[in-house]
């Protein structure tokens, strides 16, 4: 991939009010089948967008998604997808394609919504950002949890000082891995950029930096022994408190984020879109509060994907501020790289002394 920044020849056509934004989608794997297809179908039904074409190297997968999006052509190649012409390209392919496909879409004059991670390294993300900036195009990253009314409310409550000065944060997220991946390449550092940290850690670290700002200190440990981590522990130092993050791909725990403040606590169950539990010191009861977005509509997980797409569509159409901007996607990649650079070995208490000797002697040299 060339690092040269190019200015595209074709500027996007000016959108007319009332006309749906034309959109193409690359990648018909798990995230599309489970979320994007339904979200696009809802938005198309509302007349906000028109899905012009979709592409996936697996014809069967493309056909499954096309059945949900009648009217969309199935392109035979990614070049063919871009040739259809559109205002926005959604890149939902495996992470190793994010850089090339985002760059190509930008060069074709399209704004881009790229599923997370934005790229497999922050330097690749910088390339995408530079090409977008040089061509006056928008790039959004699929940091979908920012669309949840629950996470937005937590940000507002923290900033508003509801629980006072934050004293500590504890996040535990994981469970047996059940995402219906198509191949084992999902577990390859070369193809996905890492393991559980790169995967769900992207969402977790993004939320924490969105709520609290950039950490000034990072400690990191994981259980990778030649491969990619299935479990990891991150400690982030923020001004005056520490956030402990434990991520796992092999055992289900309560899946809870807990923020402790001097005046109370906020608890959020992972992927809960609307509910947050609040307990204030001095009060006899803890409350579970339900939040909706400003339009007062309830939000499920697919709605969050709708909002994510609408966010970029509104920005393209009206110039509104992009909430899931690619800068956030790039910054979280930088945090993840800093974690990997500081890597220590997670204590695995079931391993005997012999096991550990072998880990030290051989496995880690293969990293």
């Amino acid at each position, binding site marked *: 991939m060339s690092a040269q920044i190019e200015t595209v020849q074709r500027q996007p056509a000016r959108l007319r009010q009332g006309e749906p934004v034309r959109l193409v989608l690359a990648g018909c794997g798990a995230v599309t089948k489970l979320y994007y297809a339904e979200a696009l179908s809802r938005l198309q039904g509302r007349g906000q967008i028109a899905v012009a074409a979709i592409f996936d190297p697996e014809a069967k997968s493309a056909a499954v998604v096309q059945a949900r999006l009648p009217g969309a052509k199935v392109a035979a190649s990614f070049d063919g997808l871009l040739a259809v012409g559109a205002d926005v390209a959604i890149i939902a392919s495996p992470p190793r394609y994010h850089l090339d496909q985002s760059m190509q879409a930008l060069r074709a004059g399209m704004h881009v919504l790229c599923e997370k991670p934005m790229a497999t390294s922050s330097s690749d993300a910088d390339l995408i950002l530079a090409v977008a900036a040089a061509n006056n195009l928008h790039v959004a990253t699929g940091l979908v949890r920012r669309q949840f009314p629950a996470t937005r409310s937590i940000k507002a409550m923290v900033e508003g000082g509801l629980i006072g000065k934050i004293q500590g944060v504890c996040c535990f997220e994981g469970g047996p891995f059940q995402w219906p991946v198509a191949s084992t390449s999902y577990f390859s550092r070369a193809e996905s950029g890492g393991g559980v940290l790169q995967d769900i850690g992207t969402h977790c670290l993004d939320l924490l930096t969105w709520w609290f700002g950039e950490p000034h200190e990072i400690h990191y440990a994981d259980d990778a*022994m030649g491969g990619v981590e299935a479990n990891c522990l991150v400690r982030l130092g923020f001004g005056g408190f520490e956030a402990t993050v434990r991520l796992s791909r092999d055992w289900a*725990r309560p899946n809870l984020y807990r923020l402790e403040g001097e005046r109370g606590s906020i608890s959020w169950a992972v992927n809960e879109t609307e509910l947050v539990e609040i307990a204030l010191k001095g009060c006899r009861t803890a409350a579970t509060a339900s939040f909706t977005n400003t339009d007062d509509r309830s939000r499920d997980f697919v709605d969050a994907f709708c909002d994510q797409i609408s966010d970029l569509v509104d920005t393209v159409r009206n110039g509104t501020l992009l909430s899931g901007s690619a800068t956030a996607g790039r910054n979280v990649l930088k945090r993840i790289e800093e974690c990997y650079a500081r890597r220590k*070995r997670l204590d695995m208490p079931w391993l*005997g002394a012999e096991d550990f000797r072998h880990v030290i002697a051989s*496995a880690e040299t293969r990293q």
Partner: protein
Amino acid sequence: MTGTVAVLGANGFIGCRTVELLHLSGWAEVRPIVRRPSAFASLSRFAIDGRVADAHNVPALTAALLGCQSVVHAVAGDSRTIVDAVEPVYLAAAAAGVVRLVYLSSASVHGQSPLPGTDETSALHDGQTVEYNNAKVRAERRLGELSRDGAVQVVVLRPGIVFGPRSSWTGGFANDLLDGSAYLVDGGHGICNSAYVDNVVHAIKLAIEVPEAAGRTYLVGDRERISWADLCRPIAEALGFDLAAISVSAPLSFAPNWTQWLRDGDLYRRLVRSLPRPVRSGLKVGYAEWRKSGLDQRPPMAPKIKVSEERALLHRCRVKLPSAKAERELGYQPVVGFEEACRRSVAWLTFAGYPTARSQVGER
């Protein structure tokens, strides 16, 4: 080095630790084989040559087993899966030129409360009230029939209650304690035929390397004679629970378990298999999310304890099954004592995020 050892069902509790131990010790080149790509999530910690193949698909399995000298059959599943997986695995192993197949059966073939004097020579029957036991009995029989052709050497291991990190007897019991559904029948004074997972893996290694083991069956377990209360106490103490408070009496009769009956039924299985794979995967993810959200949102209430027949029989067991034959013929000796096994199991609970007294995951 003991050639290449394939581990079928490598993402399961015993399979996963087998891969980990064999790989880390350098004892063998390990080839984990799983049914779907997502099952590599935990195994991908290692740089290992793994394969995806369904245990019912002989050509795919044969291709996955090519170059392996031994196969460890640790496929778990419902009763039908247990029986149905035996023949394809044997045929694939034969076609791939595998020398020896180690089949992980269960001491449950003798029932949850075996009679005094039970050993490997005791007669088996498949008319037991617990369907899992019958499935294991039928699987062993089918494997015995198949191996008469001599194409692959078969060794059958019958471990007892295999516990340790990631097991249902350890993490599952901790979950039960935390959600209020844990119980011990009659205080858990019955004998638990425990087998710490590392001891089982040690038996697997011996079953692979001892020439005389071919065609034989072995009961394997821990050295100590322990009770169910002994097994559960360290977990309860680590989480701050009192075992005496969860003692219950078993009912006089047991109603059939309809969910198990449904899962084992032909109609249900045919219906599930008729769905396209992405739909099945999507439903599975959706069901897990729904179940999780349902559990999270359920208002706190006193849980109803429902004693299962299987658990009632286990908790009132009066017999310590012998590992004497394995000791005599394989040279089997448990490599991890019960106390150390409990220490490691509780330490794993801390690692996995349980609110133990030492709730702080460390690093080295």
